[in-house]
C-alpha cells in the first residue's frame, strides 16, 4: 500500500514539473505575439500612407496632363486673338484662358496636398517649424480654392487680366513654401537618421559592456569607439552647415535650393560611413 502511495506521489510530482515547464514556455511566447501585433499595425499604417501617396501621384499626373492640353489650347486661341482680333477669337481666348487658369490651380492644389502629406508622415526637423509650414500649406490651399472659384466666375478679358495679377502673390508664396518644405523634409530625414545612429552607438556600447571579451578584443572595441566618435563629429559638422544654409537663406529660387542640396551630400555620406562603422563594431 505504501509503495503505491509513493508511486502515485512520484507520478503527481512529475506531472507538476511538466505543467510548470509548458507554462514557462507559453509565457516566453507571449511577448513575441504582442510584438507581431504591433508590427502588423505599423505595416497597415505604412500601407495606408503609401496608398494615399500613390493616389495623389496618379491624380497629379492626370491633372498635369489636363493642364498641358489646356495650355496648348490657350496658346492657339491667344495667337488667333492676337492676329485676328475678332469677337469670336476673343471669346475663344477668354474661354481657353479661364480653362488654363483653372487647370493650373487644380494642379497646384494637388501639389500642396502632396507636400502636406509628406510633411505630416516624414520625420520632423523641428516640430514648431513643421506645424508652421503645415498651416501655411493649408492656408495657401484654401486661398487657391477661393481663387479658382473667382477664375471660374470670370466672364471677360478684363476679369481674367485681374485674375492673372491676383495669382502673382499666390505663385510667389507657393514657390517659397515648396522650397522650404522640401528642405524641411530632407533635414527631418537626416536628423532622424543621425538620431538613430547615435542610439545604435549607445546600444552597441551597452551590449559590449554586458559581454566582456579578452584584452586584445577589448582593444579592438576601443579603436572602434574612437572611429565612431570621429564619424559622429563629421556628421555633426555637415549637419550644422546644412542647418545654417537653411536658416540663413532667404532666397527661395531654384538656385538657392540647389545650393542647399549640395550641403546634404557630405551629410549623407558621413551618415553612411557611420553606419558602416556601427556594422563592424556590432560584430566585435
Amino acid at each position, binding site marked *: 500500500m505504501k*509503495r503505491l502511495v509513493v*508511486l502515485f506521489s*512520484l507520478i503527481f510530482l*512529475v506531472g507538476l514539473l*511538466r505543467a510548470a515547464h*509548458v507554462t514557462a*514556455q507559453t509565457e516566453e*511566447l507571449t511577448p513575441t505575439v504582442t510584438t507581431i501585433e504591433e508590427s502588423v499595425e505599423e505595416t497597415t499604417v505604412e500601407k495606408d500612407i503609401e496608398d494615399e501617396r500613390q493616389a495623389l501621384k496618379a491624380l*497629379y499626373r492626370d491633372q*498635369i496632363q489636363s*493642364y498641358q492640353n489646356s*495650355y496648348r489650347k*490657350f496658346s492657339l486661341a*491667344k495667337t488667333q*486673338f*492676337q*492676329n485676328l*482680333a475678332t469677337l469670336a477669337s476673343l471669346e475663344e*481666348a*477668354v474661354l481657353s*484662358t479661364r480653362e*488654363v*487658369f483653372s487647370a*493650373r490651380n487644380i*494642379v*497646384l492644389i494637388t*501639389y500642396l496636398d502632396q*507636400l502636406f502629406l*509628406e510633411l505630416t508622415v516624414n520625420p520632423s526637423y523641428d516640430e514648431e517649424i513643421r506645424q508652421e509650414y503645415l498651416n501655411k500649406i493649408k492656408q495657401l490651399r484654401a486661398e487657391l480654392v477661393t481663387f479658382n472659384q473667382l477664375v471660374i466666375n470670370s466672364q471677360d*478679358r478684363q476679369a*481674367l*487680366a485681374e485674375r*492673372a495679377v491676383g495669382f502673382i502673390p499666390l505663385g510667389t508664396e507657393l*514657390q517659397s513654401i*515648396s*522650397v522650404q518644405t*522640401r528642405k524641411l523634409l*530632407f533635414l527631418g*530625414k*537626416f536628423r532622424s*537618421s543621425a538620431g*538613430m545612429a547615435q542610439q*545604435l552607438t549607445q*546600444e*552597441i556600447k551597452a*551590449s559590449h559592456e*554586458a*559581454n566582456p571579451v579578452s584584452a586584445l578584443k577589448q582593444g579592438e572595441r576601443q579603436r572602434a569607439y574612437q572611429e565612431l566618435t570621429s564619424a559622429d563629429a563629421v556628421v555633426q559638422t555637415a549637419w550644422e552647415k546644412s542647418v545654417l544654409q537653411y536658416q540663413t537663406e532667404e532666397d527661395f529660387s*531654384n538656385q538657392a535650393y540647389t545650393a542647399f*542640396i549640395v550641403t*546634404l*551630400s557630405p551629410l*549623407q555620406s558621413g551618415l*553612411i560611413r557611420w*553606419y*558602416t562603422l*556601427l*556594422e563592424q563594431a*556590432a*560584430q566585435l
Partner: protein
Amino acid sequence: MKLFSKEPQIQQTEFTASQTWLEEPSLTPAEQLERAEKKTRQRKVIMISVGSIALIIAIILLMVNLLSRPEPEIVEVVAPTPTPTETPILTPLLSRILEAKQRTEAIDVREAELALPQVEFEIVLDEPKKQ
C-alpha cells in the same frame, strides 16, 4: 505464496545437507523446524529487496519516458541562421543597423518628385497688337 511452499524446501534441505547431516549430531525436530524457518525468512528478505529494486527501476524508466516525450503543443520554427559567426545577442542590433543604413542610402537628395510643378506662372491674355 506458492513460492514458499514447504514441501520442496524440505526435500532440498534434506538433499543438499545430507553429508553434513551424516557428520553432525542429529538435530531435534524443534531445531530442524527453526533452521527451516530461518532459511525461509532469508529468502523472503531477498525477494522483497529484488522486488523493490525492480519497482524503483520501473519508476525511473517511467519518469525518463515522460520527460523525454516530444511536446506537440509548441511548434518551434527554427529559422536558418544566415551568418554563424554572429553572436545571438547582436543579431537584432545588426539588423537594425542595416535597416537604418538602407533608409539613409535611399534618401535621394536630387529627387525631382516634389519639385515645383512645371506650369506657367505668368499666363496673360494680352491685348491684340494694333495694326
